[in-house]
């Protein structure tokens, strides 16, 4: 019963996103979050001068994840997300949000079968994609290493 004409009508007439404003918000919020990360990086480098760079970077991610999870907990991150869209999804704080929000949501079904089981309903794909790409890239590097 599919009606091509009707689908075209709907696509032509449905309201489009308020384009420019969402982009501006995404840019501003995303930029600010990255600057906060940069700030933590500089502070940690100053306080912990003998740490190597990659360790500092990991610490910065952990701090940002803490912030993202905390802001999710106090109910700020969803409001930020409604305004900023991509600006709050793409930074690592958005990853923290996507772990903490289902954990909070499904806490009502119990800690084990609710919160723990459903913590990764949103973030699961990211972990799977990360793990698979880690194995694939490891294999690539290993095979390339054989020929060198």
């Amino acid at each position: 019963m599919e009606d091509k004409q009707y689908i075209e009508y709907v696509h032509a007439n449905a309201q489009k996103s308020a384009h420019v404003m969402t982009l501006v918000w995404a840019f501003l919020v995303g930029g600010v979050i990255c600057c906060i990360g940069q700030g933590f990086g500089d502070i940690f480098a100053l306080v912990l001068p003998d740490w190597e760079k990659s360790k500092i970077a990991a610490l910065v991610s952990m701090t940002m994840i803490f912030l993202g999870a905390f802001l999710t907990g106090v109910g700020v991150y969803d409001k930020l997300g409604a305004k900023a869209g991509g600006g709050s999804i793409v930074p690592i704080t958005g990853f923290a949000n996507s772990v903490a929000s289902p954990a909070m949501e499904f806490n009502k079904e119990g800690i084990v079968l609710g919160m723990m089981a459903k913590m990764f309903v949103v973030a699961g794909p990211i972990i799977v994609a990360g793990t698979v790409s880690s194995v694939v890239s490891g294999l690539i590097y290993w095979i390339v290493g054989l020929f060198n």
Partner: protein
Amino acid sequence: MDIFLGYVKAFAIGGLVCMIAQILINKTKMTSARILVLFLLVGVFLELVGVFKYIENFAGAGITIPITGFGSTIVKGAKEGAKIGLFEALTYGFRNMAAGLTAAIFFGFIFALIFKSHSKKV
């Protein structure tokens, strides 16, 4: 002055990355999980082809704070492991994910115990 310039660059590139995500959201109606996976894979790809470190040198946190940075650390770990042996090549990538994952799971758990989710306001 150099430090200040670093922040401007981080702001600009970080903002730009997020803006590209927003364009994708507006155009394709992708949900946040898809966006995160896509950008993670972009980070993996950029690191694999060796471009990531140039962007990182320029933009600093502007590219490492977005989830692309997570992708790049994974590949960095795999690369490091591959120098040692096959086992390390397969597992060191995940080792580099450990910091982020541990933080996300632990803080997610703690805050879910403390806070409750609330409805959004119209």
